[in-house]
């Protein structure tokens, strides 16, 4: 009889609710690393059903799908309903690159009144609401790991990181939560 192998996602079962802060692993989602020149933005926006943001540090979201601006020609598209994002872009004739990175990334949802302080334990950016408003997003560093921060609410962030760094990121967030 063959043994069955159960797939364990990164950060499965990890959770922390302490000192008014909640850390929880985000549900699995489809993710797309999208690179495209200006000429393809219009058709890609149409194919994905949301406008790709063109201003630095901005995002757009609609029906569980979001596009985060990472660079002048680079976006991270996240679909919480696990839709086939690469397939949606396949019909676009203009030159672009769409790579499925659903399993490369995982995310931690961080929320609570002290969220800025906790993230600033590892991230040197100014995360005040003036400098980093709701819906803002940015690739940055968190401790020694590269992460993508996306502010989903005044006191809530989604921290996207590579799954191989996720244990480190989660532990550092836990440590920062407990440090007062």
């Amino acid at each position, binding site marked *: 009889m063959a043994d069955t192998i159960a797939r364990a996602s990164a950060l499965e079962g990890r959770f922390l609710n302490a000192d008014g802060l909640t850390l929880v692993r985000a549900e699995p989602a489809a993710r797309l690393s999208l690179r495209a020149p200006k000429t393809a933005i219009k058709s890609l926006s149409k194919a994905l059903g949301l406008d790709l943001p063109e201003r*630095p540090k901005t995002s757009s979201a609609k029906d569980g799908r979001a596009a985060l601006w*990472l*660079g*002048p020609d680079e976006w991270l598209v996240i679909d919480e309903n696990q839709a086939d994002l690469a397939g949606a872009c396949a019909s676009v004739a203009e030159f672009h690159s769409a790579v499925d990175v659903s399993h490369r990334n995982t995310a931690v949802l961080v929320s609570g009144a002290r969220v800025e302080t906790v993230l600033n334990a590892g991230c*040197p*950016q100014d995360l005040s609401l003036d400098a980093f408003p709701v819906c803002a997003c940015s*690739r*940055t*560093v968190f401790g020694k790991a*590269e992460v993508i921060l996306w502010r989903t609410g005044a006191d809530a962030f989604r921290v996207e990181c590579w799954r191989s760094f996720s244990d480190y990121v989660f532990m550092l967030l836990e440590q920062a939560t407990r440090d007062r």
Partner: protein
Amino acid sequence: MLLIHCPYCEEDRPELEFRHAGEAHIARPENMAELSDEEFERFFFIRSNPKGIVYERWRHIHGCARFFNAARDTVSDRFLATYKTGEPKPDLGKGK
């Protein structure tokens, strides 16, 4: 911590997000195969390394990931200007 202005992100960002990428405005010779060893050495290895203002390439590697150019004073470590790749050296004015 040093704040560096990224011309693509259009704001000041912490230096941890950046990586130095060598001297800027070095044009790769078009007749590479015809260069003598001395000429190749000059192009490939020899850098100006002045005390004062240098023009450097930097990469916002943990941000927008773009390369850009910066004018920096090696004495004070102050960034005098940053500008997009392909743009000419900025006029830094007198007294700087």
